[in-house]
């Protein structure tokens, strides 16, 4: 694949993904939330009762589609390789704190782009913090940070989390009484496109992201590390398509106050995304990328996804997640603790290594 076609492909994929995200809002998802990996994993965490925040409980088919779309394409292209064993507990911990950072800001890096494209000025603070967090991660990468190598594992190990996604899809379709769903009008969890629409959108974006290696954190990271703009082009293409889409749909409302599922505390928007960006660089990719890699049989990413889900449960059980009213005191403490712990993890895996 030549550079030009590689870059053209990621631009086209980014534009398509931006359009799909806008279409999902049209079909019922919350505004500026066509996709949000953090929010959707949080909703799933609530649906299976890991937290009891009644406003955010739903099994989001987009997540299921992302993992399965990636898996189908990886299998077809011979890229499904089951690997794991690269510091799993560290990855779980990083995943949990990335989620806590995302829920301080109210969105993953993907939703940050969609919020920017919707005119949400608060996301500018998020972007600044996100870039700062990535720079923190790059600082350690340049000094030898590594979670050590992964190893080949059994096929069954790689199919376990994608299999669980199929299980979630069954639970969504059957809707047994022990699964929690936000009641109509009860919050963002009640706002969603029809199951089939969400699932197909997830499958499509999963397949596109698998092919192009799209990663929100990789865009800025690779520019800083290697002056390589491929992934950043994908990031920009999503923004452009979503911006145009929002303008056409009348969902572009520039400003700070009263933005959908957002708050106006600039400092904590920035610090939340700093934690998310920092943690994601140490994980090797944004939450979207972790889902895609899970579909490719990467069980280290699967562990990070489990960390994200559990982090969301902590965030709502302990009152760490922000709301439209703003951040909580507990959330601020958790983000500070998160930044400290992520820094310790970065130092330990950069400077504390024994040569073997």
């Amino acid at each position, binding site marked *: 694949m030549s550079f030009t076609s590689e870059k053209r492909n990621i631009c086209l994929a980014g534009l398509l993904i931006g359009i799909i995200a806008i279409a999902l809002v049209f079909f019922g998802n919350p505004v500026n939330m066509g996709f949000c990996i953090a929010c959707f994993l949080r909703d799933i965490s609530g649906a299976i009762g890991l937290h009891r925040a009644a406003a955010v409980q739903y099994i989001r088919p987009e997540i299921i589609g992302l993992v399965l779309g990636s898996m189908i394409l990886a299998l077809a292209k011979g890229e499904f*390789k089951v*690997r794991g064993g690269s510091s799993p507990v560290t990855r779980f911990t990083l995943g949990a704190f990335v989620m806590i950072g995302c829920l301080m800001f109210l969105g993953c890096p993907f939703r940050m782009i969609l919020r920017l494209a919707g005119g949400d000025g608060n996301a500018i603070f998020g972007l600044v913090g996100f870039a700062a967090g990535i720079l923190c991660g790059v600082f350690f990468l340049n000094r030898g940070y590594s979670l050590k190598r*992964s190893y080949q594992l059994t096929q069954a190990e790689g199919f376990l989390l994608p299999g669980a996604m199929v299980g979630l899809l069954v639970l969504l379709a059957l809707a047994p009484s022990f699964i929690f769903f936000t009641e109509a009008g009860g919050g963002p969890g009640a706002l969603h496109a029809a199951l089939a629409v969400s699932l197909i959108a997830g499958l499509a974006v999963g397949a596109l992201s698998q092919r192009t290696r799209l990663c929100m954190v990789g865009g800025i990271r690779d520019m800083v*590390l290697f002056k390589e703009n491929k992934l950043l082009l994908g990031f920009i293409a999503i923004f452009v398509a979503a911006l145009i889409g929002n303008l056409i749909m009348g969902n572009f409302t520039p400003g700070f106050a009263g933005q959908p599922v957002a708050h106006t505390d600039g400092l904590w928007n920035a610090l939340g995304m700093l934690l998310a960006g920092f943690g994601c660089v140490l994980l090797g990719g944004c939450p979207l990328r972790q889902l895609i*890699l899970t579909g490719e049989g990467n069980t280290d990413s699967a562990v990070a996804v489990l960390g994200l889900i559990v982090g969301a449960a902590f965030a709502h059980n302990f009152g760490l997640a922000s709301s439209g009213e703003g951040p909580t005191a507990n959330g601020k403490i958790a983000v500070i603790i998160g930044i400290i712990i992520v820094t310790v993890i970065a130092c330990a895996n950069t400077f504390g290594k024994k040569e073997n």
Partner: protein
Amino acid sequence: MNKLDARGLSCPEPVIMIQKAMSGQEASYEMLVDNSTAKENVTRYAEHQGYSVEVQTQGGDYLLVMKK
């Protein structure tokens, strides 16, 4: 040290590895990687640095032979 083993490492680590090695300005490098993302990214980086890259498949791994 022109032979590098980046198997099991996920991006960006293999690219950082080749970046550091290439600061030595050697005429040729060989790197073993085990996933196609690393193969693509290392190839792209090496080509940017003016190396021609030949990819050989070795079982489930890729051997990247880079020459200036």
